[in-house]
């Protein structure tokens, strides 16, 4: 059971996250509208990039970070069955994240930092934008430290006992984020913020991009962790089954920890400042990171099959019919896997050096990361919020129909949004464009697909609003006596584990070692080469 103050803490994290999410969702849909053939040109492209910056910063930095933090606090207390240590620090972390979000969003909304959430130096905007982002990240570092502290306190009290899988995964996610955020932090603190404050007039854009790639890919795996934790530790229980293998889960999270960070140069395949050999090396390790996802798909499908067979399902595939399809968690995991399948297949195309040439910087990429993150991952955020909500509010969620409708709308909307994006990307439509002239005969055939994706976005907006409505209504029902919160049980609960599967030292050493091998030379070489800096391009300055 959750402590009363921990409940408030988690609810605060979730509500801030979800409000930022719905605001950013509305901006996203506005962007879809004004650059579709349904609207005439807005004349001022800066407004569009301002909106993209706010949308990306909220969806990339604020929303998933706060969900991971809130969920992490819940996991710590629920799985370790000990009160959360450092609750005041946790509130301080949330405070930093909120202050940071506001600090960043004020210059963005004034049009002083329309640099997109990936910063793109040599463009440099108002320093408060970057300082705000740093505050959000520092807030999340408090969470990283607290997760580690809570685990160590528990290990001290329970020597030799296997760490519960939810906490093991949660701490893996925290360590992953701690290490992966270092790249962008170096870029911000040593390169961009000095330039934004006017202390420097030039910036090494190539080096900055390498540092950002350190963060840019693994951040996606950090976003993905809560969804995967839900796959392993909530889904089998929620649909009445058992987790097929606890060790497989540990292996998956360990593989993410080791492999998801030193692969970011696959985002720089078209960048001239990185050698082809390193691009290949990173492509190979990007391939390696598909293994934990394939392990997960196998394990969770097996776990779902267990549930179906317990419900009397028969035959090689006939068991599918016996699944509890009216259960929201079942719907969510099915939708998530479909989107993960398509998005993962697209990802394998992106990581291939040659195939990437055809889709690089096209709408295909926008489609890809919306399908994976906005689709497969965010739909599991919804599911885990629904699952936890009664334990946070002490009240039952009664709108099961609305919950299912919301999940359906999100799934259909995301498919209608991202499939046309992939398609126009193959046709060559570039991303990050404020305007397309659809009367141009070369672009006219893309108009239909763009309109389709606008309507997909509209469904997503409706679904997002429905999501917060359901959660808000969850606060209004009468109090109930809650059963104890349970995570999934494995078919074979671990009683003894090899120490490697019950600790992080080896995996952290491998993660850092692999970073040195894969990033050491590109970074030190770019640091050593002289005259690689270019004048900064001030954004939002008076003309």
């Amino acid at each position, binding site marked *: 059971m959750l402590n009363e103050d921990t409940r408030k803490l988690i609810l605060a994290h979730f509500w801030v996250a979800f409000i930022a999410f719905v605001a950013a969702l509305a901006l996203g849909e506005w962007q879809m509208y004004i650059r579709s053939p349904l609207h005439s040109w807005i004349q001022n492209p800066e407004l569009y990039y301002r909106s993209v910056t706010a949308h990306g910063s909220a969806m990339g930095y604020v929303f998933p970070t706060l969900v991971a933090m809130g969920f992490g606090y819940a996991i710590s207390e629920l799985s370790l069955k000990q009160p959360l240590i450092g609750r005041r620090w946790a509130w301080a972390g949330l405070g930093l994240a909120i202050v940071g979000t506001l600090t960043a969003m004020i210059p963005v909304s004034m049009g002083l930092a329309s640099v997109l959430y990936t910063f793109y130096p040599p463009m440099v905007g108002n320093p408060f934008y970057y300082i705000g982002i740093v505050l959000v990240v520092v807030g999340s570092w408090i969470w990283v430290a607290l997760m580690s502290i809570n685990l160590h306190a528990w290990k001290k009290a329970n*020597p*030799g006992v*296997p760490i519960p899988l939810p906490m093991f995964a949660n701490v893996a996610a925290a360590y992953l984020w701690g290490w992966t955020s270092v790249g962008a932090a170096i870029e911000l603190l040593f390169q961009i913020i000095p330039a934004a404050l006017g202390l420097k007039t030039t910036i090494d854009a190539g080096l900055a991009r390498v540092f950002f790639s350190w963060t840019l890919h693994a951040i996606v795996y950090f976003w993905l962790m809560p969804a995967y934790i839900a796959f392993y530790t909530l889904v089998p229980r929620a649909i009445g089954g058992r987790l097929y293998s606890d060790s497989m889960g540990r292996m998956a999270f360990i593989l993410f920890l*080791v492999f998801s960070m030193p692969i970011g140069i696959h985002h720089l395949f078209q960048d001239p*400042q*990185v*050698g*082809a*050999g*390193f*691009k*290949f*090396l990173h492509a*190979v*390790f990007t391939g*390696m990171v598909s293994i934990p996802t394939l392990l997960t798909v196998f394990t969770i499908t097996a776990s779902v099959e267990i549930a179906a067979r317990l419900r009397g399902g028969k035959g090689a595939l006939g068991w599918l019919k016996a699944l509890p399809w009216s259960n929201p968690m079942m719907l969510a995991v099915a939708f998530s896997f479909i989107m993960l399948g398509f998005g993962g297949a697209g990802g394998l195309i992106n990581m291939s050096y040659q195939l990437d040439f055809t889709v690089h910087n096209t709408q295909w990429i926008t489609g890809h990361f919306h399908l994976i993150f906005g689709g497969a991952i965010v739909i599991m955020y919804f599911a885990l919020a629904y699952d936890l909500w009664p334990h946070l509010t002490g009240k039952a969620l009664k709108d099961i129909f609305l919950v299912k409708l919301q999940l359906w709308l999100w799934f259909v909307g995301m498919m209608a949004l991202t499939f046309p994006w992939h398609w126009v990307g193959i046709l060559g439509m570039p991303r990050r464009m404020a305007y397309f002239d659809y009367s141009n005969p070369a672009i006219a055939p893309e108009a239909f697909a763009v309109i389709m994706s606008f309507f997909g976005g509209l469904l997503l907006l409706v679904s997002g609003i429905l999501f917060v409505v359901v959660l808000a209504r969850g606060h209004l029902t009468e109090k109930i006596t809650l059963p104890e919160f349970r995570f999934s049980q494995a078919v074979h609960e671990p009683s*003894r*584990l*090899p*120490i*490697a*599967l*019950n*600790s992080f*030292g*080896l*995996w952290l050493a*491998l993660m850092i*070692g*692999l970073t040195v*091998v*894969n990033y050491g*030379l*590109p970074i030190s*070489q770019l640091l050593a080469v002289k005259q690689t800096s270019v004048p900064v391009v001030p954004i939002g300055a008076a003309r």
Partner: protein
Amino acid sequence: MSEQRLFSRKNPWLWGSVGLVAAVAIVAMLIGFVWMPYSQSKKGESLWTFICRAAGTPLSAGPTLIPTTPPARPSNVIVTAQTMSADNPEQSIGRGGTLALRCSMCHSTQGKLPLAQSTIPNLAGQNSLAIYKQLRDYKSGHRVSAIMQPMVESLSDQDMRDLAAYYASLPVIRHGGTPAVKAPAIVDNGAPMRNIGACVTCHGEVATKAGAPYLVGQPQAYLRTQLMNFANGTRKNDINEQMRNVARNMTPAEIGLAAQYYGSQ
């Protein structure tokens, strides 16, 4: 379980995982740094050359492509008052206008940048002979620039004449609104005791000498940089060291004054 040690040679997880990751890295490196670059290498290239290229640290590409020091012989462009006489000036300007599209990224579509701190010269209304000479010097490597040299690489002699004609045809745009400032002595009178001629005797306003650029309205930062480069010998494409002799004898304060004056006009 507590008696197990993680970092122990007896732990199969340790050498298993480290060995596996190292094996993947080594195989990937052999393919990425040796096999693939070898299959794409030129005949006679050493192993070390293409390993370095794959790592992004080319040993020899830079210097041979773009010379960083000008040749020892002086610029071979001979300018006379007739150098730029075109058979069909209208056509030349038109062609130059088309070619100038590739210059507009830095020199703007009007050939004129609004920034006083720009290190890029304004080209609008510039003397065509001056532009032509500088383009020729960039192409031959007598004037060194990592940006301009690749840009002029593909230009023919006629292309350079057309570009010069086009930019010369644009109106000179002065910094509007600034009240006329009295020129500093170095600009109007020079410093005869130190063998410095007045700027205005070659660079416009009073008189113009063939091949010398108009300086009015050029960005201050650009002028200062060029004078410093002449003074310290980085820039060497002036025949008989005309400008180097002048700039070497100017004080930093005079350089600043001259640049400020022309930049504000």
